[in-house]
């Protein structure tokens, strides 16, 4: 509190960005980190141990759901902004990637990076345009963005308009044929899942992450504490968009085609929110637990003819029940129920 010490006069440089250096508040020393990594490793290697293709397909979907939900968690759980149309980043990434692959012969990997870049860029632009909106207004705006992008692409000839884009099967030859390609893309999603979970951790226990959590708790108070809220929110949004963008390219490449109604399904956006809320928003383990549980439930329901057409109704009902009875989700509930586990279930 020495007022004699000189401090820089004028606006200080903006260090609200990526200062992931110090982890004294928590971080790597907590078992939660290793628990999350362990769970993903075990789940991720199941298809290898069983050698089963159907396990691989199941785990592909689960890992993809985990990484999408974990990405969403950065803006939804850490920052407190409900991105209702988050799937727009997945769809846009997929389109940009497939366009580069089909029209320009790019490799999957560079195309995937470009998909992530495109999604990140869209988030950056949106950050300036809609992140000043609060609460329901922001959520509504993100739905609007999803619909606008879908409508635009529906009429955009370069991206195949309403028909979409299709991958020539011969392209898979470069990846060792369709069978090997399926394993390759599986490993890619596995790696991305590990990456987003480590990133989630890094953010949560960084100075930047503390700023995001402060925004979630009370944005005006955060501003008064010195958090540069506009740039912090924008970076959170960008970080939450990049992995979905990359995943979109991998998913639709594997799928061999992309079309507007598949790429921008609002339905999928809602499911992602359900996953994050079910597991526990704002925790690193939450999206992992939520996405796995939800995907397991869904594949169970899909086999039942009664529920097959009621998926969305089911997701909605589940969301309602969570909000009413366990607003902090499974992980949040366990944390408050067993206080000793507070730091284990981060």
């Amino acid at each position: 509190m020495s007022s004699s010490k000189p401090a820089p006069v004028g606006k200080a440089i903006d260090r609200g960005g990526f200062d992931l250096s110090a982890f004294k508040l928590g971080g790597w020393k907590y078992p939660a980190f290793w628990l999350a990594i362990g769970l993903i490793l075990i789940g991720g290697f199941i298809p290898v141990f069983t050698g089963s293709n159907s396990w691989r397909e199941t785990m592909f979907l689960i890992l993809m759901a985990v990484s999408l939900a974990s990405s969403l968690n950065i803006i939804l759980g850490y920052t407190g902004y409900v991105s209702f149309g988050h799937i727009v980043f997945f769809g846009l990434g997929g389109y940009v990637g497939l366009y580069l692959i089909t029209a320009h012969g790019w490799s999957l990997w560079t195309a995937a990076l470009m998909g992530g870049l495109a999604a990140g860029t869209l988030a950056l632009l949106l950050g300036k345009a809609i992140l000043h909106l609060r609460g329901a207004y922001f959520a509504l705006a993100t739905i609007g963005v999803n619909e606008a992008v879908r409508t635009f692409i529906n009429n955009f000839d370069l991206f195949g308009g309403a028909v979409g884009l299709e991958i020539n099967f011969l392209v898979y030859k470069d990846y060792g044929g369709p069978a090997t390609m399926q394993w390759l893309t599986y490993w890619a999603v596995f790696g991305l899942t590990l990456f987003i979970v480590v990133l989630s951790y890094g953010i949560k226990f960084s100075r930047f992450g503390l700023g995001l959590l402060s925004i979630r708790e009370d944005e005006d108070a955060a501003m008064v504490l010195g958090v540069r809220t506009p740039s912090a929110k924008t970076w959170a949004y960008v970080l939450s968009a990049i992995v979905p963008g990359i995943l979109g390219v991998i998913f639709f490449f594997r799928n061999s085609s992309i079309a507007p109604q598949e790429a921008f399904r609002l339905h999928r956006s809602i499911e992602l929110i359900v996953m994050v809320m079910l597991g526990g928003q704002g925790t690193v383990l939450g999206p992992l637990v939520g996405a796995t549980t939800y995907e397991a439930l869904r594949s169970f329901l899909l086999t039942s003819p009664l529920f097959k057409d009621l998926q969305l109704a089911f997701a909605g009902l589940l969301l309602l029940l969570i909000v009413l009875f366990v607003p902090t989700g499974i992980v949040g509930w366990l944390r408050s129920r067993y206080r000793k586990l507070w730091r284990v279930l981060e």
Partner: protein
Amino acid sequence: MSQDNGVLLQLRNVTKEFGGLTAVSDVTFDLPQGQVLGLIGPNGAGKTTLFNCINGVFPVTRGQIIFRGVDMTGWKPYDVVSLGLARTHQIVRPLQELTVLENVVAGSCYGHEQRSLSQAEEIALEVLEFLHLAERRDQLAASLNVAQKKRLEMARALAARPYLLLLDEVLAGLNPTEIAEMVQVVLRIREQGVTILIIEHVMHALMNVSDRVIVLDHGELIAEGLPGEIVNDPKVIEAYLGDPALAEKLMSGG
């Protein structure tokens, strides 16, 4: 109070209008480095609004705010913080779902010194000790009682190690023992050379801590002087007549 008699904060004709309502009207004063300036006035006089103008929560309608020689009129709150100004809120605003320690670390690492997390944690622990909150460091802020939340509000502001501290009714809602403790805290902050602008209704407490007092009524600065002069100023007494309870507090201080 201070060796350095430079002016830390200057307000020049600061006016804030909300639609047709003028909440702060043409307020001008200087706050010298190292002084404690009391700000009093009846409820609705515009005190909190004046704080909100100084730290950038509200843009001013007219006028100028100069802090440490820098004209910061129109700056955002986080830019104002970067010059070394911190404040507390009259209605406490803890980051509920974060721990007490995390709240204070946020204050420190986003304060003007831009501390890293580990340095911020050291400072935060020191400040928590100072405010008798150390043993509650791992509790969620939501679980604190009002008096503790007031101290947390103070701890968060102090952890920023500001040159100027704005305190908005930190004694309101506290019992006499808690008031006495908080007054000690303010006195010790003052000893460390931090300049303070303090809004307070508890007059005897304000008399103990402030070097000078200014009085706001209907947004206008109606009096300025030593604490002893202020409580006997007929203009001030008149301003308070509409509110017998507050007048009582004012008189009991004199």
